[in-house]
């Protein structure tokens, strides 16, 4: 492997598992967590697929020495990273499973390099979180809501910055996780999270949708605060050749709350795929 390949792998804490000769499934996490977000769905893919996941710059165990606020203040920096991971590992015919804001990156990456991707799996996606009354677009939020989110991030700043939060004394529900591991799970860097929150909630990729040629599966959750049903229908309308599947799972993170249902929906979609 070249130095570049190693550095990309290192920078983004890329992990590779599953069948080395299997088709590639690449997991891209969304705002608020890291690649651990996929922890519960990955086992459903490991027997047949080569499973690759990574942390976006600024999240998880990515190397913050490479974090440039300017580069990561728009989706483009993240999209370039995603494509760099594909290139470094020479990934072809990738099934890109992308959650939340990563679904926006997936769409931009598919427009930029359609030949890299076989399918896009968009988990709880949105085209824009901000309402646009002039286009009758319902994203779910206003600019003021996003300012409130930034304040919430600030009020959690010190707890996150120094991992000062105490560890709960008893946790019978998660016996497999203990101590430090539990504390670091989806722990967010408060400085980069602020930037990432802005990118997540203020990006608008509606204009890119018409240029997507890679077929996409849209997984729409029930009662998802971040992606109301209108958004799923909107994406389905705008993305040529897309499939919309509603999940029973509630909330915004079905891969954590309903891993099996989520994995089955993806596998079924891939199986029914004639190509």
């Amino acid at each position: 492997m070249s130095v570049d390949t190693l550095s990309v792998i290192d920078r983004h804490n890329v992990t590779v598992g599953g069948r080395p000769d299997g088709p590639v499934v690449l997991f891209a996490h969304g705002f608020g967590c890291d690649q651990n977000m996929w922890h519960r769905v990955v086992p459903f893919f490991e027997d047949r697929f080569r499973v690759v996941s990574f942390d976006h710059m600024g999240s998880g165990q990515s190397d913050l020495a490479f974090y440039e606020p300017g580069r990561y203040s728009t989706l483009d920096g993240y999209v370039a990273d995603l494509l760099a991971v594909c290139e470094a590992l020479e990934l072809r015919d990738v099934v890109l499973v992308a959650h939340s804001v990563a679904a926006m990156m997936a769409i931009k990456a598919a427009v930029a390099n359609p030949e890299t991707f076989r399918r896009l799996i968009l988990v709880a996606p949105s085209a824009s979180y901000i309402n646009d009354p002039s286009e009758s677009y319902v994203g779910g939020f206003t600019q003021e809501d996003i300012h409130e989110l930034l304040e919430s991030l600030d009020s959690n700043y010190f707890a996150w910055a120094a991992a000062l939060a105490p560890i709960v004394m008893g946790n019978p529900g998660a016996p497999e996780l203990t101590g430090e591991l539990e504390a670091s799970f989806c722990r967010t860097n408060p400085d980069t999270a602020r930037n990432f929150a802005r990118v997540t909630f203020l990006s608008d990729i509606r204009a890119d949708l018409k240029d997507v040629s890679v077929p996409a599966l849209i997984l729409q959750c029930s009662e998802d605060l971040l992606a109301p049903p209108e958004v799923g229908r909107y994406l389905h309308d705008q993305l040529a050749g897309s499939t919309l599947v509603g999940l029973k799972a509630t909330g915004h993170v079905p891969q954590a709350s309903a891993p099996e249902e989520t994995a089955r929906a993806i596998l079924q979609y891939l199986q029914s795929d004639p190509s």
Partner: protein
Amino acid sequence: MTGETDYERLYQQAPCGYLLTDDTWTITAVNDTFLTWTGYRSSDVLGMPLPQLLPVGDRLLHATNSVPRMQLAGSVSEVSLEIIDATGKRKAALLTAVSAPGPDGGTEIRVIIFSAHERRKHELELVAARRRAEESEARSLRAEAGLQHLALHDSLTGLPNRAGLASILTRELAESPSGKEVAVLFVDLDHFKAVNDSLGHNAGDELLTIVAQRLSSAVRSTGTVARLSGDEFVVVEHVSTLSDATALAERLLETVNRSLVIEGLEIICSASIGIALTDSDGTDGTQLLRHADIAMYRAKARGRNIWDVHDPSQGDPAANRMRLLGELRHGIRTGQLRVHYQPRVDIATNVINGVEALVRWEHPTRGLLQPIDFIDLAEESGLIRALGAWVLEEAVQQGRLWNPGTPGCAPVGVAVNLSTRQLLDPHLVDTVATTLTRHDFDPHLLTLEITETALMESPAVALKVLTTLKAMGVGLAIDDFGTGYASLTYLKDFPIDELKIDRSFVSGLGSNDGDSAIVSSCIQLAHAVGIRAVAEGVETDHQRSTLLTLGCDLAQGYHYSKPLTAESVTRWIADQDDTSNPSSPVVLQPLPEDAVDALISDLDTAMENHEVMEGSSPVPTL
């Protein structure tokens, strides 16, 4: 509260809120402390998703961070958030929760909520202070980077300046890849000063900015474009061979030559480029730059808008110039200079009207030198004053011989060129007056020719000097008209007798519509303000007949005669006297002001359509 167990008391009246929810965070139980603290009744909150009690920002963070953490790690600790109480007020709180198997076999979430008003306030203040400190640090870093940038860059074009170039050159020379050489191309715009002088500094700045952009886009991303000063640019690039460098020079000339519009005027720029390459001698940046500069001067001397490559066998032109200057001084003192005279002829009658005095230098080793070989040097060094006075003396003395005052003998006028420095010389009027007196020469037979550029150098001084000369009876001509980019309206303000149309326009007569239009407009304009039009550089009979049709008054050029020695002119006059009759002078009447303005506007239009930066140089030709 009788019958209450310790456990119930601990649960209901603990010093914090206790809640139980199902795995979707829907509240299934709540203690008294929480109800008292928020003002809700238990029926208000039971069955309600806990996030509904949070403001939208906390709700978003809960959905994106706390929910997956709960599901993946089974707990969250001391999440800072706000609870909206029964009155709608926000209460700061810390939330800790674990998920655990519930009594019915499902998952339940056990939640503790602490009031944390002061802590939240304190932490938000700390974050704000931290942000301010970071911002101020970023500002000072930016300021420092800005200063560094300012020191190394030119503020007009944003390109590296001389200091910036020096550090880039040092780096490039040190890091030059093997098999590659560093090429330095010294790019100097031709006649930039004329643009600055005639269109103003803003236009000049705009021109430089455009040229900077063009050069930058013509250079690969590995190359550098810097601006040294004024109209001097330097391009640095890694090349494999000299032909790479010359190809780059061609490309640069091409991009500079593309026409551009400044203040509504179309301008064609040209440049002279000197190329120098690193060689095995371990050339340093300063030497390389110096070599490119030398090559650039040679390109300029060879006629501009071309490139030249540094040739180590050629001497340093600065040293050459110093030597030439010494020789010229010596030459003036020891009588190596000559004056030749080119006849000017009445186009209608073919009769000689006068001569233009032109200086030549009979150099002991280099042969007969033309003004272009040494006049710039004389002008720059100030030697032009002595040289000019000598030419005037010679020409007037000779003119007196051709005009003996005998009746029946046609008068022969003498024209002498004045340079910028001469025009601004406070002794000029005295010099002219004493020369005329000394030789008892009729001032009306002397014409002084001044270029537009010289006039515009200091128009107020020029007006004063010309008015005095005019009052003495001396005739005045604008030389090389059309090449100096001066505003045409000054024609009306200066006491001029003749307009000499530049040879570059005359040579295009018949073959270039634009030139024909300009010549025609110049002639009409001259006549409209009541002065003569003189065509320079007439070389063919076709040009002569066209000028005749256009009504031009006088002409000079090889078609009639090349510049001749005084003796040859004397013979030429004698021959002419035998074949033709003297013409009666035409008296020109000026047109009304508005007619003149209309013609000026016509000529402006014709000029705009012409490539103004091309054509002959506005260098004075003594």
